[in-house]
């Protein structure tokens, strides 16, 4: 009597999004695209969190309602942090652009050891 998307489906989509995000972060040099990829990874995680909130295992004796709520609250937190991070990150990118008229991350290597 299973209806709807099973747990494995959510996880598979999340995994694919995450991998796309990782590959994007590693291979792209435009910080804005990197940010988008980071968002992609965060959202992949959000998706898995929600999936587990819906289907996930519950500890012996724990209240399943609370477990579900905890997963969803986590997603809210992640989105809030992601928004803040993007705000700061874009600010930094703007500052760097003003300074150097260039935002290629491979050029930003003055902090190398």
């Amino acid at each position, binding site marked *: 009597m299973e209806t709807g998307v099973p747990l494995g489906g959510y996880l598979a989509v999340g995994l694919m999004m995450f991998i796309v995000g990782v590959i994007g972060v590693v291979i792209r040099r435009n910080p804005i695209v*990197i940010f988008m990829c980071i968002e992609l990874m965060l959202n992949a995680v959000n998706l898995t969190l929600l999936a587990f909130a819906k289907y996930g295992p519950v500890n012996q004796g724990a209240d399943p309602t609370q477990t579900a709520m905890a997963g969803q609250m986590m997603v809210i937190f992640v989105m809030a942090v992601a928004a803040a991070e993007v705000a700061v990150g874009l600010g930094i990118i703007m500052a760097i652009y003003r300074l150097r008229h260039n935002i290629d991350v491979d050029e930003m290597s003055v902090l190398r*050891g």
Partner: protein
Amino acid sequence: MEATKNLIWLVLFLPLVGSLIQALLGGRIVKQLGPQKGKWLMGLLAVAPIAISFVIGAFITLQLTNAEPADRHTVVTLFNWIDFTSIRIPFETVIDPLSMTMVLIITGIGALIHLYATGYMAEEKEYTRFFTYLNLFVAAMLILVLGNNLAMLFVGWEGVGVCSYLLIGFWYKDIANAKAANKAFIVNRIGDLGLTLGIFLLVTLMLTSKAGHVGSDNRWLSYDVLLSLDPSLTGAAQALGNNPGVAFAIAMLFFVGACGKSAQFPLYIWLPDAMAGPTPVSALIHAATMVTSGVFLLNRMNLLFQMSPAASAIVAIVGAFTAVFAALIAFGQMDIKKVLAYSTVSQLGLMFVGCGSGYFWAGMFHVTTHAFFKALLFLGSGAVIHAMAHNQDMRNYGGLFKYIKITSICMIIGWLTISGVWPMSGWFSKGAIIDGAIAQPYSVYGEANLGQLAGYIGLVGAFLTAIYMTRMTYLTFFNKEERWRLIEPHHQAHETHEHAHHEAHDHGPDEHGFFLTEAPPEEHAHHHELDREHTPREVPISMWVPLVVLAACSLFAGIIMNRATEIPGVSEHQHVSAFQNWLYPQGLSQWTRLPEVPHEAPFGLSGHWFMVAISVAAVAGGLLGGILWYRQIHKNRLPVNEGWDTGGWNPWRRRAMNQFGYDSAMVSSAVEGGDQLATALWKKIDVGVIDRTVNGLGRFAGGIGKVFAFFQGGYVRGYALMMLAGVALLLGYIAFKMKEREAPPMEHVEISRRVASL
């Protein structure tokens, strides 16, 4: 006594206040009143505190003599200086015969020297700076002798050292003076180290033996507790008696301290160089104050030395050696002040012989008489130097008697006193020491009576003293030829030690000294160096009055202080010297293991015929031999053996001039050896070991850093990849571990369905 005992604080603090006035107001007052009036006032303000201290001290001493011998001891406390649970050190003074004797010497002779200095330094620009130091010196010395505990003694001890440094280097613009001051200070530090360690060892002994805590109110570093034999106080005597080895060590450390201040053999080298200071300073350091502090320390801590006969024997032998060694060096000196400096070293050696033989009172007796006649000789030599345009070389003197009669007569009295002619004071005090040392059975080491040996060596020293003092007197005063008349124009004879003095002179209208009655000599402005037209002039009254007073003291002090008195409470027929009776009325032996010292007085009273005979032989032989020798030779021209060309000298006199190589050996071993040692330490240890270790550690860390710096490439994407790899590894590891472990049972339920069912 009780009512007036607090007057002692006036004695102690007046010189200190005087010093502060000189330091804080002196310059302004001189500027306000003009150099002449200002210097007069500041001179008065410099002499007055010392003189008032002397008067008060004499008053207190008079009261002390009226008290019963057993009551001649009062402790006056001002405030608690250091207060811990285990020790309490009050700021307190002790009024007893020993401290008051020293106070009278310091303030009495100090006042005369201050008076003299107002004349001697009248042309000095930095007049008030000089008297600031001089008053401070007296104050430090008073703290040293009046303090009732070792901590206060130490404060005075160091204060005296600092002041001597400041005074010796008073004309600091001359590098030689600055070097002499440094030498005095550094050599004194060696002695101070000994004293410091001695005090530490004594404190450690007292603490470990649990002595001093019973009934002493924790004041166990105060003399009246520390040196007491009262069993209810538990002083140091018992602890020292139980640990003879420690007693010896403490006594030797205190002796090292005394050697430093009192210029005994290994450490005497600072004193002759201290002549670089102004002559009143030489008089103050050599006669009244600094050098006597070592003998004072031996007297004050005589308990220590009586607990250790071996240490006493060493004191006596070192003193005897110093007495002869310094006397021999004095033969090679041409500088009149240097001769006196070595004679001081020699006389101090005699005092140590007395103390080392258990005749502590005789040591103090000689301190007292020596203070008179050595101050006399130094101030007299200062007058001669003053009269001879600050030239100190005796080769330029000769026949001065007819020019400066007062100075000459005073100096001749000083010469006869230091030589030990009866009935002058030197005869009695030297006699007391030598007689005591030869008679005593005390500082015996094994079979050898070292104290007796020291006494005989001291007698040789006295013989030599009579000869070299005769030499000095004849070279200076008695000679037909006035040798400064032989000075060629621009002769090299101007190697005076007081060049800087001339630079410091004021050439303005302020050439009047305090009490300077005569008009200043006209030639002063242009006549600073001795030349053939020079006419020696008698010194101003402020300078010769102290000479006359000191000459009178030298003449009569001995016979007065050595008069026979009865021992209180003992048989009527036993007589002792008044000074001994005053200083140690109870005798030393009542509270120590010192064998009963024969209470017979030295020669002046009831001396053994043998002692009188050898003493007379030594003094008369020395004097007559010296007079015959130097009169014959010096009738006319300066002989080759005393001449300008030291190459013509007897080789032994040349060696004596160079202190038999001791000074240069000390300098080369201590200074240059220390330099080489320091260089070796620097190159081998510091650079070779320490620096290499530290640098090696740094390089090691740098190498490790280089390895990790490879990963810090500066590429954000590289970092991201590394993070990914790291997280993957970490997760893989966790997953691997989880798989090994039995996972806790989980309920796989579709939550939404659960929720719906609720």
